């Protein structure tokens, strides 16, 4: 388990589903008409199956154990709904990492368990000195 979805922020746009190199994500949607019905669909299936107006989706991590932690989905999400974390066996102590990517920068934010934050902005146009 390496990433987690914040359901309050996920809009179900499906961008992360497209980008995940492991194909580990899908959208869970409940049709507004049928309300309770929930299915797991990949993004491609979703666009074929229902019209956009009906979509009220949320991303779902199908195989959380299979995540490589590449953070492609974090950078793809425009809503900051996905975070990366380390399980305790890998040194995780409850902090999480989100990313806000634009053409020129990626702004990474570490949220610590006590609520404090640390922001690190990386300019995409500047090479690393290492």
């Amino acid at each position: 388990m390496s990433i987690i979805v914040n359901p309050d922020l996920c809009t179900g746009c499906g961008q992360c589903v497209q980008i995940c190199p492991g194909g580990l994500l899908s959208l869970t949607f409940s049709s507004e008409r049928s309300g309770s019905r929930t299915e797991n669909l990949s993004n491609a299936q979703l666009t074929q199956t229902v019209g956009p107006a009906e979509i009220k989706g949320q991303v779902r991590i199908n195989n959380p154990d299979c995540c490589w932690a590449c953070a492609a989905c974090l950078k793809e999400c425009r809503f900051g709904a996905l975070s990366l974390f380390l399980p305790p066996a890998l040194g995780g102590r409850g902090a999480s990492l989100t990313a806000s990517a634009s053409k020129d920068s990626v702004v990474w934010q570490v949220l610590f368990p006590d609520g404090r934050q640390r922001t690190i902005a990386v300019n995409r146009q500047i090479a690393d000195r290492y």
Partner: protein
Amino acid sequence: MKFEPAKLKTPPTIIKAEAIVVGGGAAGCLAAIKLAQSGYQVIVVEKADIRRSGCLAAGVNALNAYIGRGKVPQDYVDYALADAHGIARRDLLLSIAERLNEQAAWLESAGLPILKDQDGRYAERSWRNVKINGENIKPLMAAAVAKTQGLNVLNRCRATHLLSDGVTVYGVAAFSPENNLFYHLQAPATIIATGGAAGLYRPNNHGSAPNRIWYCPFNTGAGLAMGIRAGAEMTTLEMRLVALRCRDTLAPTGTLALGAGARQVNALGRPFEGDYGRTTSQRVLAWRRETEAGRGPCRLAAEISADRREELYRAYLNMCPSQTLKWLEQAGPEPRPESGIFAEVEGSEPYVQGGHVGGGFWIDTNRQTTLTGLWAVGDAAGGAPQKYVTGSMAEGVIAAEDAAQYLQDFGRPAVSQTDQGRPQQLFQEALTDLTAQLKPDQALAPGRPRLQARDLGLALEKTMDLYAGGISAGYRYSSSELVMAATMVAELANLADKLSASSLFELSEIWELKERLTVARSLIAHLESRKETRWPGFGEYSDYPQIDPEFECFVNSRLEDNELKVFRRPMTRNNTYEHHR
């Protein structure tokens, strides 16, 4: 979503092109672009999305194959050959080395930031590599692909079979779970540019994070397995890569060591680099020996200022964000004024691949495999260790040039000189092979266990770990253990053939398991056949613990009538190598 036969779109989609590139990584993107620029219709089959697929999904820390100032391509050849303890192809290394710097320039023109010195030249990290911001390298390559005319990408589509009569390759069978479709891709030229194979051995992290490994876990050896099954010759699979990486995150260490000048020290604080030699394999051995002697944990430690440490955090965010997160979890939210940084190191589980080590397809100097109409490049191609990103790109270009020549000689349109019925028949055989496992759940007696691809995969990893030199075996294996491994892998392969899938997603999981089993079978045979210990950091053959000059040769294999033939080939001394068909 459960599979219902009625929902499967039939008939399969047929796509005709002049060239197929399997895998849209560094090698595949360059091969596809060069072929399309030569005027050929190219289709890239990619099992993820080329914007973030494979090894480079998270980014990369440097261009690690480059000819620095005052050096010449031959220096690279000599270095890589010595690092591989003599088992590498001079012709392949030289042709890569001659084109490394043009790949770096291509990447810069595609938008990759490369650090420059005051004279405007690339700032070198060592004579073999340059500093970059590699976070966005894959999207940049994908953008270059997108604006190339005559090039189409099939994302979320996995190639499964080479359509080959054992002599010539006529195309590829593939399927897409997302689109619920099978594909028959037809072209006279096919370039295998897939990754190598992870998922053969039990990894460092278990429980909820088994895929927190160094190599891309989604590289399941697809290209290698397709080639093996089609009867293509493979080489040097036994030179497994055990990567020395940061503990827990398996993050790269080069940025710390080369970039920040970190030194490896044991628990006594004593540096031990060089005590066991300086080749890649010997560096891994150094960590193992120090740990075995009770002087672990070993760590990479650098005395850098707090400011430079912040830069290091950014550098790791650009390729392995977990490592920065780990450091910050240790340090807390407030920047610390004191200097220094460290990371404990550990060895990864072994991988089969051709980008760092020498395992993969046996190819000629132009990257053509032993099958006509089939080329292999990058991590799928053997014989040229230390090619990394730029070397893989160089191989893509070399293969594209040769394939273009082949297509020109061959004449257009596609599949002109072949019997039209033959590829169709080969595709039907592939489709039968795939759909044989696509059936609703077998009726199970209540209380009976159901075999699943994932569980068989765990059995494979355990088998290889214990009996074929995995982490818990201390990377050691013996003849009798390899016999055990071979028996169990054969048994697992039989079980895998009997699994049933109720959707193309499930079929995908089964297929990846079968790819890993196919590569594992060949790997075991290679390990058994090289009766010596040449790269002790990567693995030790307990029955043959020394280097044997007899094995200054390549160990190659080929599947014939489902029997794996393993044989030796002499070292190549020339700057070109041709297959004798």
